[in-house]
């Protein structure tokens, strides 16, 4: 269990994180979402004890980060922003160093390094120094370093930044594979990532939590969620169709685009596709397209954070 208790960080006049409180339970993959400079990284730095909060505290598996930092750190795996490491070290030496710092020695160290190397597919670059690696490999070395000691809590700052689509997929599978019994917190500004791996998302802006929901729950807040789009064969039919659809009881409003596409928005987010389809069948409209929209996270994200940042 991780608890943040009114975590606050002030840099001079700038309030980077403003009394953030939340709890994360094992099995949850929590996504920190927010515009750049929202306070995601600062919050993570406070959870890991790298930065001391101006006020408030974090508790990691029962250990206060302020008072019992060592015990809290033992239970954390952390990938800092940008995946820093020691560029002059070989991957093998670097992972062995981190394992030793984690108190692993002898056969246990070898097992841990081998496991992390296998999970992140680093076997080919073990003898290379970190500064000769591509950005994607460096990120994976950073991830390997974070999971070496199989910690119950993983805090990953932008874990897939700089990876190609295949590598992103691989890292997401890895996170999913570890998610069952761990607490995982990731920060990202890639919204599809939240939908792909997170069981819960916190939208943070200007150091405050603006939304705390499942990715599906957040998507449902979008205006387009469950909206229905119809495209008639002849654009001339659009006016008549729009009028008829608008008269349906569950429909709140209707919009027409220039190409004749008609979009009907539901009154309370409830699905209306059944009613619309039935109506279309009844009237015998010649349609080339009829589909239900799903709410898009980026839309919600813009709606929620837009007013506070712009």
């Amino acid at each position: 269990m991780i608890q943040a208790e009114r975590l606050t960080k002030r840099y001079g006049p700038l309030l980077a994180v403003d009394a953030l409180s939340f709890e994360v339970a094992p099995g949850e993959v929590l996504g920190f979402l927010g515009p750049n400079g929202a306070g995601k990284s600062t919050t993570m730095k406070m959870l890991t004890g790298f930065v001391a909060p101006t006020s408030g505290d974090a508790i990691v598996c029962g250990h206060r980060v302020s008072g019992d930092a060592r015990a809290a750190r033992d239970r954390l795996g952390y990938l800092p922003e940008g995946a820093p490491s020691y560029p002059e070290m070989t991957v093998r030496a670097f992972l062995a160093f981190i394992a030793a710092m984690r108190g692993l020695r002898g056969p246990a160290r070898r097992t841990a390094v081998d496991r992390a190397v296998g999970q992140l597919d680093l076997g080919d670059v073990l003898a290379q120094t970190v500064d000769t690696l591509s950005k994607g490999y460096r990120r994976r070395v950073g991830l390997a370093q974070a999971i070496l000691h199989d910690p119950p809590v993983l805090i990953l700052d932008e874990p897939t930044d700089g990876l190609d689509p295949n590598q992103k997929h691989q890292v997401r599978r890895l996170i999913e594979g570890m998610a069952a019994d761990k607490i995982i917190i990731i920060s990202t500004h890639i919204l599809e990532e939240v939908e792909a791996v997170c069981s819960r998302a916190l939208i943070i802006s200007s150091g405050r939590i603006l939304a705390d929901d499942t990715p599906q729950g957040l998507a449902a807040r979008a205006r387009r969620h469950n909206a229905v789009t119809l495209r008639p064969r002849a654009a001339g039919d659009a006016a008549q169709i729009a009028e008829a659809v608008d008269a349906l009881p569950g429909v709140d409003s209707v919009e027409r685009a220039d190409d004749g596409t008609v979009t009907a928005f539901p009154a309370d987010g409830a699905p209306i596709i059944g009613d619309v389809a039935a109506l279309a069948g009844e009237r015998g409209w010649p349609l080339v397209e009829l589909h239900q929209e799903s709410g898009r996270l980026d839309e919600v994200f813009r709606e929620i954070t837009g007013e506070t940042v712009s």
Partner: protein
Amino acid sequence: MNAIRTLIARELYSYFVTPVAYVFIVIFLVLAGAFTFQLGGFYQREQADLMPFFTFHPWLYLVLVPALAMRLWAEERRSGSIELLMTLPVSTTEAVVAKFLAAWLFTALALALTFPIWLTVNYLGNPDNGAILTAYLGSLLMAGAFLAIGSCLSATTRNQVVAFILTAAVCLVFLLAGFPLVLDAFGGWAPGWLLDTVAGLSFLTHFNALSRGVIDVRDVLYFLLVIAAFLYATAIVLEMKKAN
């Protein structure tokens, strides 16, 4: 203790996989030799001691030790690895001590590699080897003091050039604290006791006694205290501005 050992090993690893170690050792040995024989007049003096060798150590260190110390923390800060290091299960004090000890061990190695000069002087005459050992100890202690100052100033910046220049400047002040260059700055206005205190901080004064083979506990203690004070300051600086 384990964390300190592991960190020392990592630091030394980094010295030796980069050119830092080799450049430092080679330049140190070449300059030490050149100063001893050319400027020090080792042969001309016709005395079986290593005075010409040790006399130039403060000035060698003034250039070389800041170069070694500048990367201690500035590099960690610049690359961001400080965030990795400081979230591992290790305290700030342990990290500061480990990095310092690694650098100190490294200078000890460079110093030990000057052993041919000791063989030479023993071949040519019958020097007081106890005095030579004391001088080596004094040299090592002074290098440690320089390194501790460098560690502290390196922690204040992410720029290694800034760290180098600041360290060299502060070390120069400490070297010459007993001499007019520094004392004149306090001349007209400072009370006598302050002048005496400042003069008492001089590395050169403390080192000269040791380099002549005179072990005075106060000289040894002085260097150890300077090391402890600057390492403590390093930890404070790091705690204060770890993240910026």
